[in-house]
């Protein structure tokens, strides 16, 4: 696939070299996100009539996500950010919403059209959201708090997910809405180069048309599945990065008269890491394939992310372990991958395929 090849090259030539400094400086080079956008990953999933040049394929999406995350997770999420705004609209919006909202968000340049899903509770779960939407005479009123909203500070529009009568729904909200308050930039364990923010919704009123799918709403569970799969794919990509680095290191680092990779304890760790990555990648692919083939992917997508969460922690932790003391030093990338890796179970709602 040509798209995936170019994503791979981009990840290797553009993302990898800048990842360390971007993390330390908490800033992604703007032109890099732009360049990543030009690869057309998001645009390729949007039909021409709405401003894209393709058709949604979750399988293509997970392949691209894996490659991007192999390069750098923060940049991967940044580049894919508008996707989480446009895909729910594409998949569940009214025809009018599709026409009016999608092409604006995916013009020739990357623009901060963002979604807000995650909430600051230890037991946050998309099926049990605490941000609520209530139907009023004029439309809907939203109340709640979101975190890890990327680029909120300069967002051109928000897609906010909220609980409406015990079902998950999404609403388009302008940054000008006076009930909206954007907090300070957040400090997180990982993906430090990505600017994320808290978003408070205090009696935010929106018209009826702001609801995706209009009066009937839409199937947000499907969106959650597509996000589960996307985050799982990102987990595979970053795990592969950590595994490959540890493999190379183990072959070069000498101890007791030979490379440490010749020690069973190291070699077996690597074999298990490789096996784990391969196994979980297949689950991710299968779930993506189900999405593309209109099968109920909810359980498969959830299981894929569950597996990817454990995989990412196991693989990145072991990569640090294999590097020994060097694994603890920020000159080497593995500690960053470990920090990013621990986030995989938390990033549900930060990317979609």
């Amino acid at each position, binding site marked *: 696939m040509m798209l995936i090849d170019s994503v791979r090259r981009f990840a290797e030539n553009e993302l990898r070299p800048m990842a360390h400094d971007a993390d330390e400086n908490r800033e992604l080079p703007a032109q890099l996100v732009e360049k990543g956008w030009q690869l057309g990953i998001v645009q390729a999933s949007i039909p021409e009539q709405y401003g894209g040049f393709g058709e949604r394929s979750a399988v293509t999406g997970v392949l691209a996500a894996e490659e991007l995350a192999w390069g750098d997770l923060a940049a991967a999420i940044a580049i894919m950010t508008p996707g989480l705004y446009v895909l729910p609209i594409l998949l569940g919006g009214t025809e009018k919403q599709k026409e009016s909202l999608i092409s604006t968000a995916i013009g020739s340049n990357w623009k901060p059209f963002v979604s807000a899903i995650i909430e600051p509770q230890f037991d946050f779960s998309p099926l049990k959201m605490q941000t609520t939407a209530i139907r009023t005479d004029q439309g809907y009123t939203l109340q709640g708090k979101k975190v890890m909203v990327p680029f909120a500070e300069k967002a051109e529009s928000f897609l906010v997910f909220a609980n409406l009568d015990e079902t998950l729904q999404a609403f388009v909200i302008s940054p000008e809405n006076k009930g909206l308050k954007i907090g300070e930039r957040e400090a997180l364990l990982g993906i430090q180069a990505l600017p994320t923010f808290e978003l408070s919704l205090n009696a935010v009123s929106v018209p009826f048309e702001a609801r995706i799918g209009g009066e009937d709403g839409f199937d947000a569970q499907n969106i959650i599945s597509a996000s589960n799969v996307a985050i799982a794919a990102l987990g595979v990509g970053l795990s592969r990065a950590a595994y490959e680095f540890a493999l190379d290191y183990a072959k070069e680092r000498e101890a007791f008269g030979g490379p440490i990779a010749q020690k069973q304890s190291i070699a077996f760790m690597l074999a298990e890491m490789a096996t784990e990555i391969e196994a979980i990648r297949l689950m991710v692919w299968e779930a993506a394939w189900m999405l593309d083939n209109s099968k109920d992917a909810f359980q498969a997508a959830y299981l894929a992310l569950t597996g990817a969460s454990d995989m990412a922690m196991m693989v990145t932790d072991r990569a640090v372990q294999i590097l020994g003391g060097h694994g603890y030093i920020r000159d080497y990338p593995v500690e960053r991958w470990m920090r990013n890796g621990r986030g995989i*179970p938390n990033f549900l709602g930060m990317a979609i395929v």
Partner: protein
Amino acid sequence: MINFETPNSIKDMVTMVQSVAENMMRPVSRYYDDQEHEVPWDYINFMHNALKQMEGVGGPNDSSGEAPKIQYQRLAVMIEILSWGDTGLYLSTPVGLLGAAAVRATGTDEQKKRFLSRILADKPVIDAMAMTEAHAGSEMPAQTRTTAVLDGDEWVLNGEKIFVTGGHKALVDTDGFVVVWATIDPSAGRAGVRPFVVEAGTPGCKVTKLEKKLGIRASDTASIVFQDCRIPFDNILGNPEIKQKTTKGFKGAMATFDASRPFVAASALGIARAALEFLKDKLAEENIEIRYGLSRALLTNMESEIIDMEVMLRSAWLLTLKSVWMMDEGIANTTEASMAKIRAGDVVVKITQKTLELLGPLGYSKEHLPEKWFRDAKINDLYEGTGQINRLIVARRILGYSRHELS
């Protein structure tokens, strides 16, 4: 990329095999576990007839009209279901097991025809492979001491093999055959090792012991002694360039494992699925529902454990599917076969152990089958390469190391 859609021809087979597993295997599963070493003739005869009608499950060299591209996949799916029924019985299926795999991996076309055709002959036959010797486990076949000496147009075999799965059924209970790995030059190390087919009834070949085992009791595990056992020259598998000290024999053994490990993985996962389904059925009886989609902070322990088991099971199955898909596509699959074996071995052990714990007193009682699956499960992390040996194989592959660099 592998195809995640199950082909229709396999779907049809699934229905049939699942019915066999439910109706022919499960009802006698406890009986043959209790009556260790009793031959399950009813099952063997039934399967022999069934398989004759349902051709194409013996791998690409059978004579069915099945599109060859999915024959290994079909076999893996069948084995998974039969092992879901009962692994000990599955290992007694006259379907072409390890011996057949060795023939397929190392024999000439003529030999494949000659030996594999026996499987679909009138009477059921069991095939087996004799590799392990008492002095060495994981170093086989390199440390082979069983010798084969050419005398005229016959090979004369001497030595002892242990842990031959189905050895008694192959040599005594049926007119089957055993593929024996023997050395034609003890000084040559693994370069001297070759596979030989020894057929049931050959004088000088004797089953000397049946092991009493933790599980898979319906399958016999035999010791076989060869004492001046003479077999035809043509029963050496492959081209008999016997003077050449190549490691061809060794590689043949490895190829056999590459070809058989995915099916061990499939078998393991059948057991794992049986255990997990039992547990879920038990919960369903009590109206306990698994709430997929929640964060771990909101799940019950039972839900969390079941979800983890489902991840393990599905991911291991997909690895297994990939490794047989590669076989069907003719792609070398050493790494993937060992990966599938590692993960399936881990998974079946973990799932059965965990299931017993979660079933409490029910799990510990022989009134129910999970305790049997717990016992059956463990063989999958031991035979055809322990988890450690398979990790060694994968590690060598990913590191690009020889066996001298990593052992």
